[in-house]
């Protein structure tokens, strides 16, 4: 289906100098070469070209200073070349070579070099760019953060979350919208309500507008907007009207031929070539040599190769156990607070963002109490927007800070899913270890408080096992302040910390039931073991908020049923070290895994698989106890009856130990 011609390009007043032509034609020739390389089968996946839009990147790059940052999108080659000029690095990257800017790991949409980043996710990059801008502001640098979006990106809510905070917090964030009239193949007439600038102005953001058919004017406009953001520490919006002369990607162009023809006719580069053929030919030949040289170099370079990715897994064997002694007996909530307080005193890079976390309210569960008073400006209430909170955290982490994001209820982590899955966990690897993302996302999970289906879940399994991240679950047998000490001192990747709601009021204690001893491994984030003397009849594996119930079951199993169980409770859920569990199961042969979330494709399933893979045969009988396969009911007694608790653990353990 073809679309009608809605609007022709404005009259051309290109004002293109030889120098501007050189910058733009480099971008175009690189992309044209990419298309031919694609045809030759030398590229992987697809490419999104910006042919026709080259001057957007050129205009922005003209106004930037060292230290300014750019976050670009899937159509980023032009922005990258305009800012860095690294033809060799880009060409090699797209050809999957080790000499690429990201070692061939990132590819077309995931570039990183000297403060230039790109990611192929629409919308999510804007909160990240806002985080970069927030960091610029905290650093007290006269630097801006620029984010490139397209008019298609305007459909994403994340954009507006970021606009709000950028305006409210006076962030030096420049939003550049390349308005090329199409979201992939869909005309904006079908999807865009109102007009674009009004949206930004509604947030109190000053807007500018220019187009790529007036490149000289566009450069001036961009400079004015960027200088405003820099000088006033305010967000600025630039609408850059333009037109993509080639397909969105490959073979997905069904725009009207007439429309395309009209825009091609007004293409400033073609016009320059017509008007100044000698100059254009000379520059073109020179640029072509640069491009061909880049291709030739990349062609000789080796492909990106598998490298050992440090998975931060504790050295598995042997398992060293030490008796646990907790001098602290305070409540968990106070211990987390204490951990934050002492680390924030020590390290000014730690900043906290979240909902309702400033004092005197101090968070829904009072973890942050009066930290905002002791550390002015470093503990900030944010609007209700979990995606933004974690996105800002990502930006802060990329720009030299140690952000802690509080998600008020673990259920809301789903709203931050894009930031965790497509941003936080990806940057380090796909940018070829040029960056780390020392981000802490902490959130209370769990039920039994009558909060019902959407405020009681344990949904950590959906975020467990993202390569390049760690997931921790604190509990009352190991001081959470020590967990946070370790995190703040050695964090080099996103960490999701699960804090069970019911545990907040529980006191730290090393007094385990009589007849058992408390031990932990010597890992950074230890695994706890509650061990009877001699061989146990079964091993119970659990984490976080399930531990107190498992301990109670331990007592009942012994007192009433003559069954001795050993408990293994890791803090670090991912990457998981299965060996402390294997060691126990090797003796008992029976494993009961208790988790409060769902077991299908969850922690228990994964653990059982790992044990069986790592030590075939030790596991003789297995049982999983987890959340029921329906949402959590509001009715208190019903909720308690269906969520794993002492009674269900007992029943499961008895069933398991019936096997001989």
């Amino acid at each position, binding site marked *: 289906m073809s679309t009608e011609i809605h609007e022709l390009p404005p009259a051309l007043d290109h004002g293109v100098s030889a120098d501007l032509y050189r910058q733009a034609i480099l971008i175009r020739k690189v992309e044209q070469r990419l298309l031919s390389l694609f045809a030759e089968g030398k590229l992987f996946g697809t490419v999104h070209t910006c042919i026709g839009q080259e001057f957007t990147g050129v205009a922005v790059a003209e106004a930037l200073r060292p230290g300014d940052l750019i976050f670009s999108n899937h159509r980023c080659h032009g922005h990258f070349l305009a800012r860095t000029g690294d033809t060799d690095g880009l060409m090699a990257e797209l050809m999957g070579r080790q000499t690429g800017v990201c070692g061939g790991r990132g590819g077309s949409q995931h570039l990183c070099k000297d403060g230039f980043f790109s990611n192929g996710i629409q919308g999510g990059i804007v909160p990240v760019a806002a985080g970069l801008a927030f960091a610029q502001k905290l650093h007290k640098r006269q630097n801006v953060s620029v984010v490139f979006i397209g008019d298609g990106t305007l459909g994403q809510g994340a954009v507006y979350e970021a606009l709000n905070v950028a305006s409210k917090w006076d962030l030096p964030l420049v939003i550049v919208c390349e308005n090329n009239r199409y979201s992939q193949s869909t005309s904006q007439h079908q999807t865009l309500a109102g007009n674009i600038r009004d949206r930004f102005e509604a947030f109190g953001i000053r807007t500018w507008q220019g187009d790529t058919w007036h490149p000289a004017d566009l450069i001036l406009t961009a400079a004015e907007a960027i200088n405003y953001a820099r000088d006033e520490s305010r967000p600025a919006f630039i609408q850059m009207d333009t037109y993509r002369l080639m397909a969105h990607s490959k073979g997905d162009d069904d725009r009207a031929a007439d429309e395309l023809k009209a825009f091609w006719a007004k293409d400033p580069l073609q016009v320059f070539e017509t008007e100044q053929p000698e100059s254009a030919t000379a520059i073109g030949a020179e640029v072509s040599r640069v491009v061909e040289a880049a291709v030739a170099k990349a062609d000789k370079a080796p492909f990106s190769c598998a490298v050992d990715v440090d998975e931060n897994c504790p050295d598995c*064997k042997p398992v060293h156990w030490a008796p646990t002694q907790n001098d602290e007996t305070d409540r968990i909530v106070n211990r987390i607070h204490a951990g934050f307080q002492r680390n924030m005193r020590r390290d000014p890079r730690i900043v906290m963002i979240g909902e309702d976390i400033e004092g005197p309210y101090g968070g829904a569960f009072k973890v942050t109490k009066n930290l905002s008073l002791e550390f002015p400006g470093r503990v900030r209430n944010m609007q209700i927007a979990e995606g933004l909170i974690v996105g800002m955290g990502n930006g802060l982490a990329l720009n030299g800070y140690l952000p802690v994001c509080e998600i008020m209820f673990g259920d809301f982590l789903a709203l931050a899913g894009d930031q965790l899955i497509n941003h936080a966990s990806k940057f380090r690897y796909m940018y070829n270890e040029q960056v780390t993302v020392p981000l802490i996302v902490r959130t209370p999970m769990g039920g039994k408080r009558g909060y019902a289906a959407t405020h009681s879940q344990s949904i950590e399994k959906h975020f467990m096992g993202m390569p390049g991240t760690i997931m921790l679950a604190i509990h009352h047998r190991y001081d959470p302040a020590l967990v946070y000490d370790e995190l703040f001192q050695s964090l080099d990747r996103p960490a999701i910390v699960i804090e069970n709601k019911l545990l907040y009021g529980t006191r730290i204690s090393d007094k385990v039931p009589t*007849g058992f001893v408390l031990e932990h491994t010597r890992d950074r984030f230890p695994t706890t073991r509650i061990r*009877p*003397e001699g061989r146990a009849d079964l091993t119970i594996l659990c984490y976080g908020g399930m531990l107190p119930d498992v301990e109670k079951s331990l007592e009942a199993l*012994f007192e009433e049923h003559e069954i001795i169980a050993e408990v293994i409770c890791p803090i670090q859920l991912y990457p998981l070290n299965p060996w402390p569990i*294997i060691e126990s199961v090797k003796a008992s042969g029976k494993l009961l895994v208790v988790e409060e979330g769902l077991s299908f494709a969850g922690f228990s399933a994964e653990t059982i698989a790992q044990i069986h893979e790592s030590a*075939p045969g030790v596991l003789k009988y297995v049982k999983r106890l987890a959340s029921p396969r329906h949402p959590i009911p509001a009715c208190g007694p019903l909720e308690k009856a269906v969520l794993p608790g002492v009674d269900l653990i007992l029943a499961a353990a008895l069933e398991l130990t019936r096997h001989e």
Partner: protein
Amino acid sequence: MSESTPILIPQEIVNDETVTILQWKIPTGARVEAGQVLAELETSKTAFDFPAPMAGYVHYTLAVGAEPAIGSVLCHISDSAERPGGHDAPKIAAAPTNGHAKIHKEAAVETAIDVISIDHPAPDRTVEFGAARFSKKAAALVAQHNLDPALFDKRGLVREHDVQRLIGGPPADIAPLAPIVQTTAPARSVAAPVAAAGVPVRDEVLSRAKRTEIKYLASGTANSLTSIVSVSVPTRGLRAAVETLGPVGGNATAVILFESARLLKKYPLFNAYYDDGHAKLYEQVNIGLAVDAGKGLKVPVIRQADVKSIAQVSDEIGETVQAYLSDTLSVESLAGGTFTLTDLSGEGITYFHPLINRGQAAILGVGAEHFPPGSKEGVFNLILAFDHQLADGRMAGKFLGELSDRLTAYERAAGSPAPPAHSGAALRCSNCRRTISPTDKHNRFLVPVILPDGSDGRLCLICFDGWM
């Protein structure tokens, strides 16, 4: 790279976590043949020669005196005299069994499970389990048999079968520890009472405790053909024992109980009960100690007295008396004991007739010191009441004679000059504090051992092997 196999330290003694390297028989780097003694190792019980499980060149770093953990690497045997570089590489032989190191070549997948057990470090010695914790069934069984919960100290979690093991097997396999003998008569003296004619009578119900006591004693008496033998023993030995042992076990009752317990292993018919033509021999020596200091007769039981040191026995008696005086004795009947000791010396009584308790075959009475006419040397009586259905007077006499000898021997031990000990100090058994007695064939040796607290000690053969 040469092939190098780690040699692991085998488990010789179940309770040991480490061994001590006493001596290397082969210098490091030298060649050893399979079966040739590599080292002399010492466990808490014994020293043993550790043979090389394979031929090759031995490499080790552990020095004499080191205490490596069971299952850890003692040394490597390689096919080269050159010390291999990668000793830490995870090339592990399988866990040794039956005291012999089995050698497996590296086979990552197959040995994956074995690796766990080998790499598992010895449990931390500082871990203490403290007082035992009983399951409900175990607690019921303990109460039923009047067992002292302290028996299970440091045993962690105690279940029904743990208690059954202690009292001699699962319930199906054994008779009750102290069976109640069924009599058709009511639990009192067999003959019907006959009042003195013409004398008015006031009726007083006996206390519940007293009635219980009667029931048990009557049951014991009714099932027994009781006979009594007695010997007089010079008091000097006992006095010497009290003085020598001092605060460790300086308690005459403790010394007598301690010695009786060991002797009962040799005279099992006194540690038994009679049942319809059968001698039922107890496999433990649990000595009831009759106590009556004004709060009624109670017989708390010293469990497994034959394997306890004199200090332990003395401590337990002290605790028992304290508990008696403070009315906190958990054991309130005579059941549970396999033999009884009753000491009335404190009352000045020199001779009495003790009554055999239910489910037992003998009771030993201890009388007060007295001086036979014309003698300056004090003596005291040991009185053994026993069930003639099982034993006879000659055996009872031998028992008492031997017990008398043992008690008197303390004087010899105390009075004899200190043997030429290596250390210069008198060599004593670390457990019972006996010295070497040249006259006692059982006591000619003291065996060097490592005591539970890790210090060096010596055990007499009696304490080491038990009475044979």
